[in-house]
């Protein structure tokens, strides 16, 4: 599939569905059906089996033509995590059922992975799924679930066999969030918002046709989900002074009265770090585009968290009296994280989560040390014992 073919298809889509006169959802469905949703996906599933690099072209031309997008920040979990997993492990029927409304945003997805007792050690999860006829009955508690209150579907990992070692007894499901056994409770954070939820699962019924991958193979399936989560966080291009550094640099330039030699040195140091992180991201993007994927994705997430925390802390200090204030403690349930639409105090507090969510910085360092540098794993006593015999 050449660039020119893709360009032609975009032109045809626009000709047949003039964005100015087409209903948003109708346009998005048409775009999906034209294979222009995600061009690297297979034909029939919103793609053209084309190189991923061509997507930029599609997005640019459609944006230029005033076409609506699918509001990707709102449906990030579906796009970034559920979709690649359904594509890789789903049956044909599952793929056709789930991917189109996922991509158009008609159906929001959330992720039921972490549990109070299984965070970094996800494989220790205790939510049980018990076979019952042609389906499963699920009981347990999940946590850190964003979008749970707006989601139609969830990707879920549950324990189907407690008698085998913990990585072996897990199965991966698609869970219907409208099931009466699903209870969603907002989980308020240190920012005052409730961006996440706790989800209590009580006798939730899942048909076996909503299982993704073989029974007992959920750990392997989940790796696809998690790897895509990390790539999604680190893979975006950025202009110089994009992100948090830009916010702080602007405050610095606009407020000479706030400057001190101490803050100047620290800001310069962070400016360098931010620019290097940006160049690292750009280099990673070039590597991916030229087909040499590197392990730098984990590096990006670590750098991003460190920088966001350093800079937001610096910003509060820089602001002096204004740094003592906070914009709003009202409990809300936002659909997206808005770093720049809020004040410095919010950024400072919210950034603390960057080194925890989606794999803590500690876990990422372990991954780099073991998978990239080839350092030996630590001695572990929990890998071979049956799950039910593990100390808790």
């Amino acid at each position, binding site marked *: 599939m050449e660039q020119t073919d893709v360009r032609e298809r975009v032109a045809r889509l626009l000709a047949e569905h003039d964005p100015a006169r087409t209903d948003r959802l109708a346009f998005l469905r048409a775009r999906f059906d034209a294979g222009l949703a995600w061009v690297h996906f297979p034909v029939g599933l919103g793609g053209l089996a084309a190189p991923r690099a061509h997507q930029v072209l599609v997005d640019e031309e459609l944006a230029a033509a005033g076409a609506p997008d699918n509001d990707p920040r709102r449906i990030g979990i579906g796009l970034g995590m559920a979709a690649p997993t359904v594509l890789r492990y789903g049956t044909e029927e599952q793929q056709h059922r789930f991917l189109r409304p996922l991509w158009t945003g008609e159906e929001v997805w959330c992720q039921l992975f*972490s549990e*109070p007792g*299984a*965070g*970094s*050690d996800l494989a*220790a999860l205790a939510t049980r799924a018990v076979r019952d006829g042609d389906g499963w009955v699920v009981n347990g508690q999940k*946590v*850190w679930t964003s979008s749970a209150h707006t989601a139609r579907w969830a990707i879920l990992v549950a324990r189907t066999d407690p008698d085998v070692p913990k990585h072996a007894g897990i199965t991966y499901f698609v869970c219907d969030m409208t099931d009466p056994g699903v209870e969603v409770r907002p*989980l*308020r*954070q*240190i920012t*005052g918002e409730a961006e996440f939820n706790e989800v209590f699962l009580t006798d939730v019924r899942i048909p076996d046709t909503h299982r993704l991958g073989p029974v007992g193979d959920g750990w392997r399936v989940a790796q696809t989900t998690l790897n895509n989560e990390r790539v999604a966080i680190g893979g975006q291009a950025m202009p110089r002074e994009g992100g948090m550094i830009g916010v702080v640099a602007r405050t610095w330039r606009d407020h000479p009265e706030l400057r*001190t*030699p*101490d*803050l100047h040195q620290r800001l310069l140091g962070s400016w360098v770090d931010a620019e290097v992180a940006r160049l690292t991201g750009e280099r990673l993007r070039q590597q991916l585009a030229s087909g040499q994927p590197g392990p730098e994705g984990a590096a990006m997430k670590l750098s991003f968290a460190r920088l966001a*925390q350093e800079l937001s*802390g610096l910003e*509060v*200090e820089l602001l*002096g*009296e204004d*740094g*003592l*204030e*906070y*914009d*709003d*403690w009202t409990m809300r349930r936002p659909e997206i994280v808005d770093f720049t639409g809020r004040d410095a*105090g919010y950024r*400072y*507090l919210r950034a*603390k*989560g960057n*080194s*925890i*969510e989606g794999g*803590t*910085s*500690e876990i990422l*360092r372990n991954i780099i040390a073991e998978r990239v540098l080839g350092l030996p794993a*630590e001695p*572990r*006593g*929990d890998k071979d*014992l049956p799950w039910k015999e*593990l*100390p*808790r």
Partner: protein
Amino acid sequence: MSDDATGVDLLYSEVEEELRASVRALLARKASAEAVLGRCESAEPYDPALWRALAADLGLAGLAVPEADGGAGAGWREVAVVMEELGRSVAPVPYLGGAVLGTAALLAAGAGGLLPDVAGGRRVAVLAVPLTSGPGAALPATVAADGAGVLRGRVTSVADALVADVLLVPARDADGVAGLYAVAAGDVEIVRRTSLDLTRPVAHVLLDGAHGQLVAAGELAEAAVRRALLVGAGMLASEQLGIAEWCLATTVAYVRERRQFGRAVGSFQALKHRLADLWLEVVGARAAARYAAATLAADDPDAEVAVAVAQAYCGALAVWAAEECIQLHGGIGMTWEHPAHLYLKRAKADQLALGTPGHHRAELGRLVGVNP
């Protein structure tokens, strides 16, 4: 100048340890994490019953006030111990603004009139300066006084103003002469600000013709405010030490219990080393805060250096400790229901309070001749 610290007692005396025990016991009963969290979501962010128990019953409001003025006749070493414990519990009481800043200003101004009420915990007299004012800063000139003591102007970001009975307002008259005025809280407008620190919100104080009683004039007023800020910064180091101690102890307790990968997460070496490093700095902070308190208590000429060192060190440490506390608690540390965030917010606000670490390093450079 006792700059080799020889002869300056850096330990806690038995009396100080007893004081600590009684404060801690009271706070454990009346300022549990749940109680503090509940209060900062209420309309009344300060706890008046707790304040009465601390200030009046335990006599902590007048610790540094001579017995002749109705106080306990102890000193800033003992106040520092109280600040440590208050830091440990982030209790919502006006101790910094009142018993430290306000009282230090009154003591330095030699103005005995208010002291008995203040020392007895019957009235809270808060020094009306922006919380960000560092020692060594010039007297703020945002309030103007006329010859009859009528005051107009505003003081922004005042800690503990919300529950003040009296505000001690620095002002200048038409000739630019400084004065420190006592103003009844009822005569001014106090505007609560939505604050990062939930347990010590700041407020703006608006004076629109309020009558002030002159407490000290001219150089004495300036000296009183300078001294109050120096004492406040020194005492704040002990509060920061207390915050860091709570964060370290709470984190250690958590990682000993929390299991992942079949092990207590506190058995993982990377975490152990980070906590050891944190402990190391807490040990240093204790020595630095003690030295600042001891030199302030003794009116030692090394107090300015001691305070600058303690603030430069403890201000950053408390923030670091609170950040590590959140991180090593994982997701649970990010929740509103866990008290860690109260400490993070207090630590971050404290870093700005009474001079940032950068401000104090710059002061220090000047004091010890390490100049740009």
